[in-house]
């Protein structure tokens, strides 16, 4: 019995000392902490509008105004997380048109000094017999061109109604969003 107790005692001593003092960390590489990054992909709505023929009427003459535009500042593009950590952006633009004519869409991205950084131009297909027709456009800004987004602060939307004989009545709905990918 004494021998057993002695053995137990020594075993416990060895285990406690080994465990308490020699507890170690193996099979890990803590230097990998330098490689840790957050890589969120964030879907963000951008601009929307729903307009009809009244928007294309010249208020002074009542005639058709074939060109309209507006500018929206996107101040968040100047924030640190965009300037330092944005890697790519995929823009998506969608027009749903019931006007019986083609409309040229220009979406321009400008710097604070109104210098164009990049633009997305496409033709909006005409509605058919008053029924809506959808036109979609994607623009992928890869890492090589991401500086263009970083320089951007304004988004300009322009519409140019194309000539045609059909009566210009209808609606045009616009949706847009961006998939912003970051690496923090």
């Amino acid at each position, binding site marked *: 019995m004494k021998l057993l107790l002695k053995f137990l005692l020594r075993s416990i001593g060895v285990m406690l000392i080994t465990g308490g003092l020699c507890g170690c960390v193996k099979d890990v590489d803590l230097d990998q902490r330098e490689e840790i990054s957050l890589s969120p*992909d964030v879907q963000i709505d951008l*601009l*929307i509008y729903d307009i009809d023929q009244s928007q294309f009427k010249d208020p002074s003459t009542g005639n058709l105004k074939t060109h309209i535009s507006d500018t929206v500042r996107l101040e968040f593009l100047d924030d640190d997380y965009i300037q330092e950590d944005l890697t790519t952006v995929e823009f998506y633009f969608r027009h749903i048109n019931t006007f019986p004519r083609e409309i040229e869409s220009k979406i321009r991205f400008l710097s604070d000094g109104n210098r164009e950084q990049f633009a997305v131009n496409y033709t909006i297909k005409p509605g058919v017999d008053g029924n809506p027709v959808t036109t979609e456009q994607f623009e992928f800004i890869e890492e090589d061109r991401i500086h263009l987004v970083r320089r951007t602060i304004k988004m300009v*939307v322009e519409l140019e109604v194309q000539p045609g004989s059909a009566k210009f009545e209808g609606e045009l709905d616009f949706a847009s*969003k961006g998939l912003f990918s970051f690496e923090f």
Partner: protein
Amino acid sequence: MMWRLIGLFLVISGTVVGQNKPLLFNVDDLPQTLMSNPGAQINFTGHLGIPFFSQIHLSAGSTGADLYDVFANDGTNINTRIQEAMRNMDSRDYFSVNQQLEIFSMGWKLDGKNYLSTGIYQELDVFSYFPKDPAILANEGNNDYLNEPFDFSDVSFTGEIMTVYHLGINHKFDNRLTVGARAKFYSSIFNAESTGNTGKFTTYTTPEGRNVYNHEVVDMNILINTAGFAPLKEEEGMTVDQATAELLSRSFFGGNVGFGLDLGLSYILHEQFILSGSVQDLGAVFHRDEVENYRYFGAYETSGIEPLFPELDANDEALPYWDDFEDEVDRNLRDETTNESYTTWRPIKANFAMEYGFGPAFLPCHYLSVKKGRYMNLLGIQLRGVKRPKGFVYSFTTYWDRKINNNQRFKVSYSLDDYSLTNIGLMYTRTFNKFNVYLAANNLLAFPNLAKAHSASLQLGMQLIFND
């Protein structure tokens, strides 16, 4: 009367069970047993701790990922492993760190029935649930989680550093029953907590809507309370030494204060069966000084900014759509910093144990040492738990407590808890004349490679114990 008392403790122990030093519970040779059960049966007539060395306690755990899950040296990408670990955890997984340092401790027998003990210890306790949804949102974004809410209630944590001054009495009621109580005065050095938060952020796909998505924040109400943090924040350029000195200066009645109580009993049910139970830290800390509360609240939804195509001359400025949008967001999603007092309840801990003794001991006894029915071996079961923000954290321990002789004793335990199913613990204590040392460690199987351990705990100390 006795049975009612026992019944009361069983009920309390069944609902609020726990403490984090199971190996020191019911060790009648060690004064530290009185810290987890002031009504414990004890086998000494006085004690005097070696200042700062009578108890050093450290424990840490994570129910979710361990160090290996994140930093494994296996050639795979660390960010992939982090993503996988995050996905495998849920919002009830938690991380905890508890540390105690006994600064001063002493006790003495007043008479044959009463033992008075007192002391000072410093404690750090940090407990945080894994904030799964906010963490996933930060790490992965909303792209893969469309139409799924990110729940801000996942943010739930408490953290405190305090000094505790205590005075306890252990009273032997009769040959069977021993009861005890300990009054505590808390001097909080630092506190931060955020519990009971609400709010959800969802990105809905809207095929029939105006835009591709609709972003919604609903019912957001996040409150973070801090006390003792504000002066450190204001002291720019403060060195670590200066910050430590500032914090320590508050440990002596300088910070926010609170009061608490420990209660405990042990009852010899039968010559060989002993029941014991205790409830610790029934108390609160009242934070009045150096308080800062950060609150984020409101609700908002948006599908984007809408240009109006106004009639503008070439020289006209565009309409301030962005400023209007920001103003609207600020009106609806608000934040404020206040200095309102708040109260934190201490994490209540409770223990219940049942022991069976065998192998009678024929050890020297003393007329003040009134404990009867001493055995060389004790087999026991112990339930314990700690009240945390989302409920109780439980664990169950079985143990063999072996007295080798009058000066040496060991305890082997096996515990089931949220961290591990293979938690084996060992405690060894030895007394050289009156000088006692003890060492206890839990989850020993994990010690050879702590990187794969979900928890580890260690207690050690030295003191003078008198038995004459």
